[in-house]
């Protein structure tokens, strides 16, 4: 599994005693062994269990240098060294003697009752030499005695204390190394456990998310079907009520006429709501097609204004349109854009009181965030947008509500006694159509009161 490759450390590793060279820093170990050798005046070398030299604290020896130059002695000494290196002390240490009359102390390096390696201390003498040993004299005649006396002199108690010191230092270093190794293994293992837990949770979240999406899709399908089925009988209701008001089925009293008129009006309202629902579900499911082509914005906005002008006059609200000359066309679907600004203007009219003002305006703007001008020269030309502002002097929208008003069915005032009617679908449709145009819509506050809906649309390429 992939996560096992990511985190290869399993807690089973806790049970393994690691190797000497894994627990210590080689350079630091060499420094420690070197300084011990300097302090005691005798060479110390540290090997792992396989006999690989891990730290070399060899001191210069005039005797050994001299013997190096004598082939027979050199060969004998090499054989001797090979033999000493092979010694694996049965107990804590083992001593062996050299043909020079000196000694080597082979010290076992154990940790947690396991052999980790060995340290070889020597050569050293226990007593000052009285003569060149015969075996050595045979190999290297004329060897002066004082050269032999240059070997370090280490009485048994010094050897014992050096051994104890070396042993306890190494034990502490190995313990510290082992402890950090275990700590890091545990860190890795717990990260790995947490990672798996998070993955499980992610998988569960993903499942829940998929389920919700499926439910959402079912809801949209249901709405589309229901809207369609509702429309058919409604068309009959509207048609027949229209025929009745026209007197096709005979003359009506004034009261009857008024009642039928109300049935007709409410039927139209219901039809509009159903159309909106249908649009919304189509927009949600992505089945509503947006045919984007270079579209001049001016006719769209003029049409919107002329649609609402009678209603505005009736309410005593001023509705004006301010357009600079020569606005470039946007890349959009004229019919859908008209729907956007119809919804926004209707919304503005709904919330603007008598003697209020609604102003539609359009300008060219740069799409870039003014604070972020990285690569401005490159990006600015492609980033021009057309901004249409629909400003009203109504009750305004509190800042906390601004992002929510675009949710379907959302109403800032959701109380049953609210003053203004509506289903809360209009702005949701606006947002979806603008999104389908790769544009943006947001709300700003108007001064001194009211709200401004700001729609930005990409321009058609020149």
């Amino acid at each position, binding site marked *: 599994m992939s996560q096992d490759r990511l985190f290869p450390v399993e*807690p089973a590793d806790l*049970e393994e005693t690691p190797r000497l060279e894994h627990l210590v820093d080689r350079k630091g170990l060499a420094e420690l062994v070197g300084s011990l050798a300097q302090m005691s005046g005798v060479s110390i070398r540290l090997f792992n269990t396989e006999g690989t030299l891990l730290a070399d604290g060899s001191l210069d020896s005039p005797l050994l240098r001299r013997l190096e130059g004598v082939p027979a002695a050199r060969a004998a000494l090499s054989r001797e060294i090979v033999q000493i290196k092979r010694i694996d002390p049965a107990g804590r240490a083992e001593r062996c003697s050299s043909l020079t009359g000196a000694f080597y102390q082979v010290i076992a390096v154990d940790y947690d*009752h396991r052999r980790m390696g060995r340290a070889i201390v020597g050569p050293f003498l226990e007593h000052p030499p009285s003569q060149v040993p015969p075996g050595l004299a045979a190999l290297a005649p004329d060897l002066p005695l004082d050269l032999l006396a240059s070997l370090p002199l280490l009485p048994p108690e010094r050897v014992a204390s050096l051994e104890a010191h070396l042993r306890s230092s190494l034990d502490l270093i190995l313990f510290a190394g082992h402890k950090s190794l275990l700590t890091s293994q*545990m860190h890795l293992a717990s990260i790995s456990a947490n990672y798996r837990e998070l993955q499980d949770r992610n998988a569960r979240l993903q499942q829940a998310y998929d389920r919700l999406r499926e439910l959402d899709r079912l809801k949209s399908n249901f709405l589309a079907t229901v809207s369609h089925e509702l429309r058919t009988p409604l068309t009959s209701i509207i048609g027949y009520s229209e025929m009745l008001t026209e007197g096709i089925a005979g003359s009506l009293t004034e009261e009857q006429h008024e009642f039928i008129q109300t049935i007709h009006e409410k039927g139209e309202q219901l039809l509009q709501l159903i159309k909106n629902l249908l649009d919304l579900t189509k927009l949600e499911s992505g089945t509503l097609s947006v045919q984007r082509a270079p579209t001049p914005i001016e006719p769209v906005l003029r049409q919107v204004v002329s649609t609402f002008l009678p209603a505005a006059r009736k309410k005593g609200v001023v509705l004006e349109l301010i357009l600079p000359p020569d606005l470039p066309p946007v890349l959009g679907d004229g019919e859908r854009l008209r729907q956007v600004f119809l919804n926004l203007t209707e919304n503005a009219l709904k919330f603007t009181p008598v003697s209020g003002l609604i102003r539609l305006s359009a300008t060219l703007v740069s799409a870039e965030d003014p604070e972020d001008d990285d690569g401005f020269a490159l990006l600015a030309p492609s980033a021009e947008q057309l901004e249409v502002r629909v400003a009203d002097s109504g009750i305004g929208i509190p800042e906390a509500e601004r992002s929510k008003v675009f949710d379907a069915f959302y109403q800032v005032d959701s109380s049953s006694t609210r003053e203004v009617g509506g289903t809360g679908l209009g702005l949701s449709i606006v947002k979806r159509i603008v999104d389908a145009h790769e544009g943006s819509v947001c709300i700003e506050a108007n001064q001194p009161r009211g709200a401004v809906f700001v729609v930005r649309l990409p321009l058609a390429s020149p």
Partner: protein
Amino acid sequence: MQLDFSARELTIKLVYYGPALSGKTTNLQVLHALSTEETRGRLMTLETKDDRTLFFDLLPLTFKSDQNFSVRLKLYTVPGQVIHASTRKLVLQGADGVAFIADSQASETRNNAAAFKDLKQNLREHGVELGKMPLVIQFNKQDLPAARPEAEIIAQARRGKEPVFCASAVQHRGIVETFAGLFFLTWRSLDRVHGLGSRMGFDERRLFSEITQRFQGQRPMRELLRSAHTAEGQDLSLQVEP
């Protein structure tokens, strides 16, 4: 359990489990203090700044009752705090036996029960049923005035399945006994499954004697096991040859 034929050693993992601050680490510290130098390794504690156990404590104990084989015990504690759930689970992995260290104070009854359920759940996630795991229970902190009385604990132990030890880690009381009980049950369980005695030639009597010799007081296994409170007919000490 790990059996390394080339190194001729058997490694057994024992875990001290229990709620936070019940004295698991203190158990290991006491075992360390009461064991001989050639047996005990360094007590390793991976602790946080406030001296609470972060990951675990580890006390290695090595016994060589046999010329040919050594038996290495690794005693682990788990961190008791709730936040270290994943660490507890990791340390528990591959455990051969568990000592559950409970806090004797009546106010801790609920925490003891929660930790025990946690143990059961974690074992289950490793595919081990609690009933199959060698398990002893220790009621620690018997020295505290608010501790539940020993008589009450004994009465309950008689009705339960697991051997129960009353202990006071700070007074070094009942700690070696708990360890002996845990080792005894674990050994017998491993022996049944792997034939440690019959197939591999481990001499149980010598090993038990070696182990008990390595702790202060050098009391024989049978005597140590006599401290275990068990159900009728389950007396641990009667299961060891005198």
